[in-house]
């Protein structure tokens, strides 16, 4: 029976409508409770900013693709080395850290829950093994369906129930959490080295369009009652003039769920480009945010880029190959049979490049032009836009016009002409930041009911206490203090245990993995569908019985059951 009392905490808890009240927080056995005995260990937060544990709703930290990023870049591995010290294992890597590196650095920043951005079901076992080696954060896995043959067949037959049945079987087999579509249909075209140029174009052989895949999957998602919505990486990522594809995609999103969004569009910065060539590329953040501000059923995340070296890794194989032809750096590709693709290349975002400066500005414009902070979350598609350790700098930029102006002065001259960032006066406040780094994510991912993203009674005791006195720091002027304050928590508490103190990890973690078990009626269980079984055994290279992830891979699995077809 472990008890902690955090006293004197300046709490911001958007989900419970608390905005900067000094209060005490009582913790017993990993949960937040009414009160604790006087035997409880006391932590004096000293009126510092206290938030629910950080939640990252789109990061690449585990799995085949991420490990490939480490495997092929020893030069990055040596750039982030730390020694074994006390409970902390050795870590390596700067923009693609090892699993312990990710876990310790996220913990030092106060993050306690992560959603792995892309997991191919065939290789889910690898992702779960790395989840166990990322001990200080609870993990969820977005499961890739963008090139799934069984899904595309069901979509062609316009059979939402069958689509939902395939999704339910695959999610259970892969112990996944939500539906991820990356360049839907495009990854299957990449199986032949091609790509799709719009959401109305036919996927070779499967005769379905990305629009049909997206709409049918949204309906299947709601039919299954999944906690999270469809998580979409739009077609045409990174191409000048692709904002039109993004707008077309937003226009076909119905409002099917009262509690949360129907579509989570990820790293929208990469999808908000105007112009037609790299020469005249410009920002279309205004058009994109105009669409979002009128559609409460859509939540996006920024996909902010920051200057410096990083690694782009995404299931969008064709996009990575196009980028490779531009940069001519190393290029890796790993298409997964019957399911999806993936590509990895290292990049450097430079202030000397007009394109990179415009990309940098677009990310910030999206956050500043989206009226409701719950609809635009702070993410960098780690590590594609930038490693997650740069989140504090982004917070500083969003809270301080002065910081933005100082940065804009060092950028390429074209930035001012082709983006409207410099004209935006808005400065986000502490409450907005709390929404965009934990509360918004919890609501979007549907894990509030699991006790995440807030500090109410019964919530999981995931708490981050930052060395920031909101009553004496003016973020607009003293942005340096904001950036430093968010880099290292004084305390990070995970499920009622102090995990990190002033950036040093002091316990061996024991994280949980959340996965979804969607119940479907008897007649729609794919394991009983002879056609599905026949195709599986014939065209996969593993037997169907060896495909599902065994429970041994989730030592602390948290099954979320949903009742479909109610």
């Amino acid at each position, binding site marked *: 029976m472990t008890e902690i009392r955090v006293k004197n905490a300046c709490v911001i808890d958007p989900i419970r409508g608390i905005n900067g009240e000094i209060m005490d927080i009582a913790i017993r056995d990993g949960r937040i409770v009414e009160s604790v005995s006087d035997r409880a260990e006391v932590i004096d937060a000293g009126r510092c900013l206290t938030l629910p544990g950080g939640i990252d709703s789109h990061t690449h930290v585990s799995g085949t693709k991420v490990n490939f990023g480490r495997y092929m*870049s*020893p*030069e*990055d591995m040596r750039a982030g080395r730390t020694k074994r010290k006390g409970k902390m294992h050795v870590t390596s890597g700067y923009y693609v850290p090892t699993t312990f590196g990710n876990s310790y650095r996220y913990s030092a920043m106060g993050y306690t829950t992560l959603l792995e951005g892309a997991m191919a079901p065939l290789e889910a076992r690898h992702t779960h093994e790395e989840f166990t080696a990322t001990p200080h954060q609870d993990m969820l896995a977005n499961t890739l369906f963008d090139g799934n043959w069984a899904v595309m067949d069901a979509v062609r037959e316009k059979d939402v129930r069958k689509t939902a049945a395939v999704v339910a079987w695959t999610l259970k087999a892969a112990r996944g959490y939500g539906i991820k579509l990356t360049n839907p249909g495009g990854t299957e075209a990449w199986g032949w080295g091609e790509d799709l140029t719009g959401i109305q174009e036919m996927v070779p052989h499967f005769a379905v369009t990305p629009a049909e895949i997206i709409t049918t999957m949204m309906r299947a998602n709601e039919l299954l009652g999944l906690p999270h919505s469809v998580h979409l990486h739009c077609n045409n990522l990174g191409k000048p003039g692709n904002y039109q594809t993004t707008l077309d995609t937003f226009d076909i999103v119905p409002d099917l769920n009262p509690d949360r969004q129907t579509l989570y569009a990820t790293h929208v910065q990469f999808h908000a480009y105007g112009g037609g060539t790299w020469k005249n590329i410009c920002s279309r953040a205004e058009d994109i945010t105009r669409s979002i501000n009128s559609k409460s059923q859509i939540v996006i995340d920024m996909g902010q880029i920051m200057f410096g070296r990083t690694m782009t890794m995404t299931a969008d194989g064709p996009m990575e190959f196009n980028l490779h032809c531009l940069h001519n*750096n190393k290029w890796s590709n790993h298409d997964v049979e019957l399911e999806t693709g993936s590509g990895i290349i290292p990049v450097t975002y430079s202030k000397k490049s007009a394109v990179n400066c415009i990309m940098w500005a677009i990310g910030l414009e999206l956050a500043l032009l989206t009226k409701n902070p719950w609809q635009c979350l702070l993410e960098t598609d780690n590590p594609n836009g930038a490693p997650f350790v740069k989140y504090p700098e982004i917070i500083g930029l969003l809270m301080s016009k002065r910081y933005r102006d100082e940065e804009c002065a060092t950028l390429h001259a074209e930035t001012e002409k082709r983006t409207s960032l410099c004209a935006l006066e808005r400065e986000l406040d502490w409450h907005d930041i709390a929404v965009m780094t934990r509360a918004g994510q919890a609501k979007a991912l549907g894990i509030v009911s699991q006790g995440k993203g807030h500090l109410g009674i019964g919530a999981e005791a995931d708490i981050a206490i930052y060395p920031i006195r909101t009553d004496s720091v003016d973020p607009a002027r003293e942005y340096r203090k904001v950036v430093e304050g968010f880099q290292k928590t004084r305390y990070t508490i995970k499920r009622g245990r102090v995990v990190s103190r002033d950036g040093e990890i002091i316990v061996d973690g024991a994280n949980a993995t959340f996965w979804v078990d969607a119940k479907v009626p008897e007649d729609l269980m794919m394991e009983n569908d002879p056609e599905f079984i026949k195709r599986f055994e014939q065209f996969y290279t593993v037997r169907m019985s060896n495909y599902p992830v065994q429970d041994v891979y989730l030592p602390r699995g948290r099954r979320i059951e949903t009742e479909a077809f109610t």
Partner: protein
Amino acid sequence: MRVILESKVRAKPNLPIEAEAIIPRNFLKGTDLLVYEGNKERTLSELFWIFVEGTAVAPENIEVVLKGDTSRIKRVGEYMDTGSIIIEGDIGMHCGNFMSGGTIEIRGNADSWLGREMRGGTILCRGNASHYCATGYRGEKKGMQGGKVEVSGNTGDFCAEYLAGGTVHIHGSTGDFPGVEMRGGELIIEGDATRPCGNMKNGSCVILGTVHDMLPTFEKTGQQVLPEWKITADVYKGDVANRGKGTLMVACRSLSRQTP
């Protein structure tokens, strides 16, 4: 000021020593430096007899002399920016890596990765240098970027891989693939070479001796007299397989075709 380090006889002579602390600048503050023997931390005095002659206020006036069996001492001269090091015997791997200034003179042989990722300064090796002389680290796009490496004897394989700047001058012969992935700088080989400048992107390479197994993807563009080397050389552009714009000049002589 001169610091003489004479290596002591060790119980396990084959254990590698990592001595990146041995650079002239560090001796300004005295001689209680730390080195590693295998996975154990040692003080300098545990592994060397230390003699200091004279004093210095500026690092460029410090000369470090290594005596005794120093063939297993690695990373000597790492990040060296000034002063000089003289190694009387053989030296271990990574001697002078990340060097940006000063001079290192090796009277014996040097092990692999001599002058890795050098930026400036001079390394003179009187004996032979082993593999990866004057190269980069795995996965990096650039190897040596500046400075000068001169080897009186021969080198092993992959000499000057990923050379990006500076000069590498091998008086003897090299092994397989000298100048492979070269993208700048100048490589001079007075002896023989096998399959030089594979996948070359740019930079220039001059070979006075015999080239074995010339790669098929170099385009002969003519001949040129090289007065400084008193030879006329066949001039090749390549590596065509890599859209390379490098220059490879080989002294006119029959190209030997036999496989080594």
